[in-house]
């Protein structure tokens, strides 16, 4: 697994440069709670027909930062963006809340930082 750190400001540009949709398969968007109200947001890819080739672009963000959407580059990212919005209570551009959690559910269940 190859991990590539990017800044949240440059992530769209980096993924746009990297993502050839006939070569790379987008697996999912992932979030990992870190200490001090920080999150690691990951964009995970695998290469078609190549064994064990996984590339992870990641950025460390504050829980309150706005995360850019990549849906115009990767249309299928819409569903995992909505999941991360619900699970971590983050703000991803253009992604609505409420895919998994109702208003009276426990909110941001996977977020480690204080609410």
């Amino acid at each position, binding site marked *: *697994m190859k991990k590539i750190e990017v800044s949240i400001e440059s992530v769209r540009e980096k993924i746009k440069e990297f993502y050839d*949709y*006939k070569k790379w*398969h*987008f*697996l*999912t968007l*992932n979030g*990992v*709670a870190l200490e001090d109200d920080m999150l690691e947001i*990951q964009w*995970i890819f*695998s*290469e*078609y*027909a*190549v*064994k*064990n*080739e*996984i590339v*992870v672009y990641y950025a460390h963000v504050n829980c309150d930062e706005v995360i850019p959407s990549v849906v115009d580059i*990767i*249309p*299928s990212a*819409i*569903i*995992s963006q909505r*999941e991360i919005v619900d*699970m971590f209570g983050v703000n991803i551009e253009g992604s609505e809340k*409420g*895919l*998994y*959690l*109702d208003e009276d*559910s426990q909110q941001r*269940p*996977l977020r480690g930082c204080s609410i």
Partner: protein
Amino acid sequence: MKKTINIPIGSQHIALLEPVRFKFECENEKIVGVGSDVGFVHRGIEKACTTKFKFDGIGYVVARVCGLCAITHSMTYTASIEKLIGGEITQKAKYLRILLLELDRVHSHMLCLSHTCENAGFEAMFMRIMGDREDIMEIQELITGNRVQFDYISIGGVNRDIDAAQAKNILAKLELLKHKVLGYIDEFTNNWSLSLKFKGIGVLTLDDAYRFNTIGPLARASGLQADVRNEIDYLPYDEVGFNMQTHSDGDINARNLVRLSELLNSIEMCNNILEGLPEGEIFTKLKGKPKGDTVVRFEAPRGELMYYVKGNGSAMLDRVRIKTPTFSSIPAFSHVFMGADYADAPAILASFDPCLSCTAK
């Protein structure tokens, strides 16, 4: 502008016995807009994995994500932990793991094909396939002790061995099943309800399959050569006769035919494993606690299943991320519905073989 009406399928619908809702915006008979809601039974398993259970018990927890592909969930999680703590398991354990993964694929594909028949109004075929599926359930019970939700895979190997008499019994059942599958192929190819009726319906083109990151039989039916079994080396798939099955039409009929071809290939792999099972132990004691992070994928019956696991060197994990096949395919499902006739929506939906138990993990 034409008048549009909204028609839902689900959250409970006779064509799909799972809690998902698609909301179709229709102009006359054509679907021109699709909305989806998959969040009816979210269970919080990812959270439970990092707060309620130690890493060595989570393989049995994630087997409860889904009754149909329980073995793929426990396999993918276990492979993640084995990667993080290091150490090699025996060749025999690897072969037995493939055996169970492929048996799981067989019974899952048979369930999907039987529901396809039911949706087509061919209930006799539904009963026939469901009856035949009992043979696979019996084999799974013989090997693991359970018909579904098997606790068979553990960190370091598998929990039960099979002896020569059991192997002979299983081989005989698989030989019978192979002939039954050849009969299904004849029906699905030549019966009006199961082939002509589904040709040209619910088409996903190859380019759209790439664009929507489509996986599993849905992708392969559109000609996309994507199968995780071809892209990993944790298990020796190249030694047991794996052959990727694809089709180029991208319609419901192509999805049925890909699943039927995969049934035959899975049965062939099971036969090869049972006839050439290596000698040795089924379990290796692996010491240590997971530290660092990893991504592991396996091919579940519905497509790619991915686990991201992060450990900190203690018994409790920092993160378990489960990416299930149906969940990541929802954008592709919505795309296929666009432009289709509403009357075809139940058949199209059944051809996706959706699993909401996995999706609402």
